[in-house]
């Protein structure tokens, strides 16, 4: 029988830590989430300012000002540094957490509402997306998180909403030659991925109507709003049998209303409950747990805090111990925690070390930062994370990174219970004392299936 603190830290957090007292019961585990709801320093307002600066420099370049070339390079370097700082903060939060349930939830929901990087500005927006759209709602209402996510600049850019203009909108009427039209990308994913789920009862007509309703959403870095009525399609629109925007002119409230209804749809609770159980417990999740998560979501009117509690208290955590592969982010955070590195150390990694410890290993393990490869996010199934190259990257990380970060490596025999508590397999207990060196002994612990799974 694995003690609750170890069970919860391994399954719902980033594993054990020699520096932190693990949460001892579900209440302590849940109380940790509050810290993860706090945003970081970087805001979308700041990113907009950076973007405007870049636009101004490029404007000068286009006007033939060759002196603007150097400022443009400096601008790019600064923006990239800002982005790496925000990325390191994500790792550091997990490293410093008591167990890290809140950070795991932030990752889960950010992946549910996947946005991807592209240019340097989109990369920055992907960071503010987590802080602004996801974190504040980790214990809150799903509808609020969904509204924040769908209207965030990172999402508006990623799913092409900024390109969508109502064909009957004032803008399209005024400039008929521009070929303005709808883009259904966001509308489709809102229903198919973010709420009801792909198997649910909706059709193309619902998506088209939702796309009309969404027209008007736009990220404009020089404006302080995201809804522009001149681009919106005159209503009303009917989505899943409900009529919105009856009074003609498009409004942001109508979008809030449709998101509220999508959130409350029975299919949404079922979809989210299963997805959460798959992510936190098992690729093929126990139906009883799915049912309890769904009930918590429905009974609480979309209360995510109630779902968090179901997970924290779930007996299935023990039944499916190590049923999941740690994704590369979880794995690296767990490794850093395990060897006793501090969050401060992670925050202060220089560019080269950031590459060696975080970004290159993440890419080689198959999880390049904010590049999930599609709006459906990272794969859950273990096989996706157990490719030969992915495993080689994990073994290399295990053997090489600890000595980059620590002056002196721990005795592997002492490190084994620090990293895995009472949960190490017999095979690993047998192997670790036989290692030839500290490097390899510590490496074998971190490379083991025990440590790669949760």
């Amino acid at each position: 029988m694995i003690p609750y603190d170890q069970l919860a830290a391994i399954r719902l957090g980033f594993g054990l830590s020699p520096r932190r007292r693990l949460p001892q019961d579900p209440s302590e585990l849940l109380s940790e989430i509050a810290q993860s709801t706090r945003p970081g320093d970087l805001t979308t307002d700041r990113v907009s300012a950076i973007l405007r600066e870049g636009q101004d420099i490029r404007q000068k370049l286009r006007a033939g000002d060759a002196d603007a070339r150097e400022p443009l390079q400096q601008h790019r370097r600064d923006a990239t540094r800002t982005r790496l700082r925000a990325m390191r903060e994500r790792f550091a939060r997990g490293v410093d957490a008591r167990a890290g349930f809140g950070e795991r939830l932030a990752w889960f929901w950010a992946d549910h509402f996947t946005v991807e990087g592209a240019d340097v500005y989109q990369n920055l927006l992907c960071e503010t997306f987590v802080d602004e759209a996801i974190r504040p709602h980790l214990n809150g209402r799903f509808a609020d998180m969904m509204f924040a996510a769908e209207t965030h600049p990172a999402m508006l850019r990623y799913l092409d909403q900024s390109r969508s203009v109502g064909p009957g909108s004032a803008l399209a009427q005024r400039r008929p030659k521009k070929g303005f039209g709808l883009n259904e990308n966001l509308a489709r994913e809102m229903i198919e991925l973010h709420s009801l789920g792909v198997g649910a009862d909706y059709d193309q007509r619902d998506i088209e109507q939702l796309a009309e309703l969404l027209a008007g959403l736009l990220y404009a870095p020089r404006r302080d709003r995201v809804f522009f009525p001149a681009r919106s399609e005159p209503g009303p629109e009917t989505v899943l049998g409900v009529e919105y925007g009856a009074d003609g002119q498009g409004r942001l409230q109508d979008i809030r209303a449709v998101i509220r209804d999508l959130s409350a749809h029975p299919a949404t609770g079922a979809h989210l409950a299963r997805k959460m159980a798959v992510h936190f417990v098992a690729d093929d999740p126990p139906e009883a747990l799915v049912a309890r998560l769904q009930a918590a979501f429905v009974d609480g009117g979309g209360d995510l805090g109630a779902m968090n509690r179901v997970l924290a208290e779930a007996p299935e955590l023990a039944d499916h111990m190590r049923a999941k592969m740690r994704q590369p982010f979880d794995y690296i955070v767990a490794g850093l925690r395990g060897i006793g590195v501090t969050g401060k150390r992670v925050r202060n990694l220089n560019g080269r070390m950031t590459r060696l410890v975080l970004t290159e290993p993440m890419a080689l393990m198959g999880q390049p930062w904010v590049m999930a490869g599609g709006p459906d996010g990272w794969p859950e199934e273990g096989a996706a994370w157990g490719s030969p190259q992915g495993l080689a990257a994990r073994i290399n990380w295990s053997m090489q990174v600890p000595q980059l970060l620590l002056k002196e490596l721990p005795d592997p025999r002492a490190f084994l219970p620090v990293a895995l508590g009472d949960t190490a397999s017999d095979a690993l207990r047998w192997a670790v004392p036989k290692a030839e060196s500290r490097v390899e002994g510590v490496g074998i612990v971190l490379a083991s299936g025990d440590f790669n799974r949760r």
Partner: protein
Amino acid sequence: MLNRRLFLRHAALIGCSAAAHPLMTPMAFASAPGENRLVVIILRGAMDGIDAFQPYGDGNLRGLRRTLSRGPDHGALDLDGFFALHPGLSALMPLWNAGQLAFAPAVSTPYRDKRSHFDGQDMLEAGTGTDAALRDQRDGWLNRMLQVMPDMTSETAYAVGAEKMRILDGPADSLSWAPRSTLTLSPQAERLLEHVYHDDPLLHPASVQAIAIAEGLSPDLLDDANGAEHLELARFTADRLNRDTRIATFSISGWDTHAGQANTLDRSLKRLAAAIVALKDDLGRNWDTTTVMAMTEFGRTARENGSGGTDHGTGGAMLVAGGAIRGGRALGAWPGLGEGDLYDGRDLMPVRDIRAYAAWAMHQKFGIDRSRLEGAIFPGLDMGPDPRLLA
């Protein structure tokens, strides 16, 4: 954008390979399907084809390009009296003279108008048309090719490099490896890990495979590369093609030359040329049965911009090399650079779908029939007449 979820991530789970290794049970490889080899290099960022293969015989070029693409009088190497090779590609001149280098100066995918790198690359790698039911397209075209090839083994196709290659994503087995991924373990560490992974149904086969690939690498494989990624990619690719691999793909980036193109493009072209030369050198006799296709998501504007660069365009160039090709010539028509010739008044007009060349190569070298190429592999493609690309 294209819908990116459509590319199912594929982590190839494979059985043991036959590396001679004390801890592994040797297994025989299935025979590799034939001797023909195909390498697809994706040039990420949109290569300026007009600068790579400069149409100096087109009287309109001078008016469009003040400082770029100035032909043989400014260092480019004359190819055929009309086109000249950018000096950055000069290392490929011997191949041209030997009939082992060709290019299609004005091709494109069906992607139009939005000119987004990411969407353009997605479409290039998906191999789909705009009218296809894109949402049903779950894999890249090299993977769909594997799905219809007989005698496949998991070694047949390789995505080389850390960069994700959607072109090979899909249900057919393939391998991926970044040349820099080394796995240097002491014999003792290897033995201990073998013990630790032994009962893990996922990690045990993966570790065996990883160790086999890493140990199968010639120790000096990357020595001459001096850390240059493009050379590492090429040398590793050649190493695999000299064994059981027949299809390989990797990417080279650095083509988005909005400013200072005279320097930036030169660097990237030199890297591309060096990678192709390294492939040729390392493949030895196998070069004779190899076709290399270097493709980019779209071309760049016909007109040079105000910062000595070019912006996102439409028609672009594809480079083809290899001992298996009928080279020393430009492939397909030249659309011209006159005012009325340009696409949208600004871009080179594509005269042929880039997928047609890939389809013909697959038809002739791997015996895949036309109906499958135009249906399953490149849905909606009309292959058109045989460009007689291959020897």
